[in-house]
């Protein structure tokens, strides 16, 4: 396990979220420390994506609190949320690249919105740097439809990183990718984390991804944090609920 400092960047307390009568999160608690990668493990439909959507403010929790850098996300106005979101990156499972824009425009779009006084040269430099980080500088003038699944994921990662977020939320970053490309994405996540000193929450069922990226693994079961520990600690567990993920 990598050495991490103890400063908490995300603190979630007693988070509850229901859709109608279906309670998805039921008193979930989690603390993410600065510089650490926390992987949330859980079955499909267990509320992993709901959890990170609550953290970024795409979904409003029913009760409980989410503090990101000591600010309570659940009580923010829309404008305050927009400000807070500039410190949080989100990598969507579907990549969510704007398909009517070129790769360059996809990367420029958040930059021009957040940094209104930025010069054209600076935008160009940041876009090129972000694409170089994921080895895709040659795709800058291509459309998303011209790229493969792995390339799209890398471009999406470049777009996520371009605003230099301090926390990144990854929604199943390797789902749908072949093992080689998955490994490339995992390495990229680790490389960019090391370079930018970010903290991350990664949602995944890909056990290779969990093993390679996690400082801490949290098992989400029935809306609660069932257990947490390092990958090896959980792998050794004799608890049936935990063992089923490692078989």
């Amino acid at each position, binding site marked *: 396990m990598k050495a991490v400092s103890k400063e908490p960047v995300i603190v979630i307390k007693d988070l509850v979220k229901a859709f109608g009568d279906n309670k998805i999160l039921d008193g979930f608690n989690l603390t993410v420390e600065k510089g650490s990668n926390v992987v949330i493990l859980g079955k499909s439909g267990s509320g992993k994506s709901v959890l990170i959507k609550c953290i970024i403010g795409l979904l409003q929790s029913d009760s409980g609190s989410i503090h990101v850098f000591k600010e309570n996300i659940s009580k923010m106005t829309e404008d305050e949320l927009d400000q807070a979101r500039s410190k*949080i990156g989100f990598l*969507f499972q579907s990549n969510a690249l704007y398909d009517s824009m070129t790769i360059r425009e996809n990367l420029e*779009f*958040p930059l021009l919105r957040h940094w209104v006084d930025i010069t054209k040269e600076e935008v160009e430099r940041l876009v090129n740097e972000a694409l170089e980080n994921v080895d895709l500088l040659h795709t800058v003038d291509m459309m998303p439809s011209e790229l493969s699944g792995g390339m799209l994921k890398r471009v999406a990662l470049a777009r996520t990183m371009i605003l230099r977020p301090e926390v990144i939320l990854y929604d199943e970053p390797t789902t749908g990718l072949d093992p080689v490309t998955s490994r490339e994405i995992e390495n990229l996540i680790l490389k960019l984390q090391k370079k930018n000193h970010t903290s991350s929450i990664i949602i995944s069922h890909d056990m290779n991804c969990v093993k390679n990226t996690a400082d801490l693994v949290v098992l989400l079961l029935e809306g609660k944090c069932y257990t947490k520990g390092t990958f090896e600690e959980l792998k050794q567990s004799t608890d049936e609920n935990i063992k089923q993920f490692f078989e």
Partner: protein
Amino acid sequence: MSLAIRFKSFLDETGNIARFTGRFFSVGTKPRYENKEFFNQCYIIGYRSLPLVGLTAFIMGLVLTMQLRPSLVDYGVESQLPVMVGLAIVREIGPVITALIFAGKIGSSIGAELGSMKVTEQIDAMTVSGIKPFKYLVATRVLATTLMLPLLTILGDAISLFGAYLGVNIRSVTSFDLFFLQVFKSLDFSDVLPAILKTLFFGFAVGIVGCYKGFNSTKGTQGVGVSANSAVVLSSVLIFIIDLLAVQITELLGFN
């Protein structure tokens, strides 16, 4: 589905569209304005619709003239053909047909585009990037449809009248100058202004309904198709309802 449930869901939908419209006025009209995207949408919605609107308007003018002629000949008032066609096109048929064509082309395209952006999480991606998707996607499109439809209608009316001129000349000979002199002599501002003003509301309805349906699209790719389809159906119905109201209002104001 029982009648009561259908009625409730109709009321829910009406309420949601009203709220969505209210949000357009409260959020969409405040700075920061998305001027670049607005002009881009004006180009897509206005300029790119021109060939279709022009073609249908031309055919409409031609066919209307050919259909009207026999009846006017029966009554011995064939010479009034340019007047009849001009009034029909400018006051009613031009605005309504252009709006229906516009609803079919633009309403469905906005519904499908925003629906597809919704199901592929592109709208969420904008939100997490600190961009206000309502302002960027909805406000720009609604303003563009509201402003572009009146312009398309004016152009459509002109092309339609040209089609009518050709229609008149199929069976008889009327000079271009005489035809348009007769048309414009029969028209005054009380014919033209209400007809153009109502297209502002038609355009607004097409934009709001298309954006509402797309923005609230669910159920994956199937939902995108449903959004596009229901955007066309609902905006077409709204065009007729607005038209009915507009006729009543212009009558009350003494424009007829």
